[in-house]
């Protein structure tokens, strides 16, 4: 397999865009990407669009607006990992030599659902019994606090850190810092998780250009290398499951580290799936960024701050950026690209040369999550 590079990234700012549907949002991100990279539509040989609620043929409905039609185009659904799965498939196309240039995007409009928790898959016994995503993470949180002696305030420090980071991110849904008191005063959603432990439902889109080294060298934009792109599904079983150890994350990350020849200690910044404050701690441990049961200490001690040992969620994470389900995995890669090319201003992690992005998706019974994607990106461009 040959080297694959990200040579451009564009995000339509996340937030509430009730007047724009997923195709409108995706169009804005993809149009901005083409403009920025000076890539003409006839150079794009394949396209992948990730969405969970954007409907049939979203990728076609987006890409045909910018002159990309006739070529193979795929709409990818993998719950919260849809956008990152789209990037993974674009990576496969370039790595295998099938294409020189590909676009992957994610787009989602969640305003259409109104407020509250997101609708989950039907025909699932737990959902028919009243399971919702915050409840699943709340039970993980209760068990983690019970097993490792962490406190609610320790969890809340994740929200405080990520909202502090997000305050500097013009693409974030929430651009304001919060303190522990604000978290403690926010409405209880599913004990022990309060509203400010949960990411907001958002609308947004993000797109990346993936290409070969030769293609990247002819572009005006800088490039970064995709050192690993790995997607795995949840390991299904209905017996006892340790909900404090997201096995799907550990398995996916292990393969990614090995493929890239990198270790957790090599990583400078991480954009992970902090859909809930507890999720950052669990996934950070499974990604090898902290010892088992010690992830909360790393947060409290500032090790995951933007200028800490390893910056976790330097963009503000899902807790600040918001979570337009299918767009999240793609936007993480955009943020990592800008970090590694020195284009993020106040968000910049000093000396960033290795970035990891991680997203998990899906609430169905019998698995940690339905899908997980991990990407490792390095600053050595084409």
């Amino acid at each position, binding site marked *: 397999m040959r080297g694959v590079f990200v040579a451009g990234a564009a995000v339509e700012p996340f937030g509430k865009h009730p007047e724009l549907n997923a195709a409108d949002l995706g169009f804005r991100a993809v149009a901005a990407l083409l403009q920025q990279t000076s890539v003409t539509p006839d150079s794009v040989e394949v396209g992948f669009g990730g969405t969970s609620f954007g409907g049939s043929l979203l990728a076609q409905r987006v890409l045909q607006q910018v002159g990309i039609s006739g070529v193979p185009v795929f709409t990818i659904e993998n719950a919260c990992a849809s956008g990152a799965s789209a990037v993974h498939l674009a990576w496969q196309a370039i790595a295998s030599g099938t294409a020189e240039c590909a676009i992957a995007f994610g787009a989602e409009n969640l305003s259409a659902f109104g407020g509250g928790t997101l609708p989950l898959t039907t025909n699932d016994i737990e959902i028919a019994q009243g399971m919702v995503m915050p409840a699943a993470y709340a039970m993980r949180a209760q068990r983690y606090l019970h*097993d490792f002696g962490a406190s609610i305030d320790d969890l809340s420090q994740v929200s405080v850190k990520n909202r502090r980071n997000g305050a500097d991110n013009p693409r974030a849904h929430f651009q304001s810092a919060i303190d522990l008191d604000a978290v403690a005063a926010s409405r209880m959603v*599913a004990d022990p998780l309060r509203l400010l432990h949960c990411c907001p439902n958002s609308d947004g889109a993000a797109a990346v250009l993936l290409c070969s080294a030769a293609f990247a060298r002819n572009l005006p934009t800088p490039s970064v290398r995709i050192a690993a792109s790995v997607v795995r599904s949840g390991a299904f079983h209905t017996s006892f499951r340790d909900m404090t150890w997201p096995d799907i994350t550990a398995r996916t990350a292990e393969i990614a580290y090995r493929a890239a020849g990198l270790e957790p200690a090599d990583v400078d910044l991480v954009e992970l799936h902090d859909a809930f404050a507890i999720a950052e701690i669990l996934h950070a441990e499974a990604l090898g960024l902290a010892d088992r049961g010690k992830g909360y200490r790393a947060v409290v001690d500032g090790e995951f701050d933007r200028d800490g040992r390893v910056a976790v969620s330097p963009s503000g994470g899902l807790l600040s950026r918001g979570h337009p389900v299918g767009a999240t995995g793609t936007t993480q890669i955009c943020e990592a690209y800008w970090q590694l090319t020195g284009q993020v201003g106040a968000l910049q992690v000093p000396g960033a040369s290795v970035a990891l992005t991680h997203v998990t998706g899906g609430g169905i019974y019998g698995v940690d999550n339905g899908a997980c994607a991990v990407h490792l990106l390095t600053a050595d461009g084409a």
Partner: protein
Amino acid sequence: MSHQEVSPATGRMVGGEWLADNGSSVSITTSKCRNCARVWFPPRAVCAGCASADLDAVPAGPDGVVYASTVVRIGPGQFAPPYVLAYLDIAGVRVLAHIPGQQGPQPGTPIRLGIGEIGADNNGPIRSYVAIAGGAS
């Protein structure tokens, strides 16, 4: 689906087809694979581990322990939040159930599985697995 659904007088039952009401207590039906020994709930016609169709129906419960619980305060209207959910570990399988009251039990709390009303919709009451404290473990 289950016969309860065509009989409004008894309400709808979620997961009722895998539950046996033995009068004073209930048991759930699990599947144990004769080929690879994996145990499943809900029961399956084909093993989701090795794809063997050679499975035994094995009754389990009603006693178990709470793995984790939560009080859902924002959730679907038919369950009338707040409501308490818990994952229960029963005889090798993990089962989601409602807990009566307004408090989530701590991990490790012994429970006993039963049947109860978990909500209501336009078709009437919804019944499913409900656990009460005090299993014999």
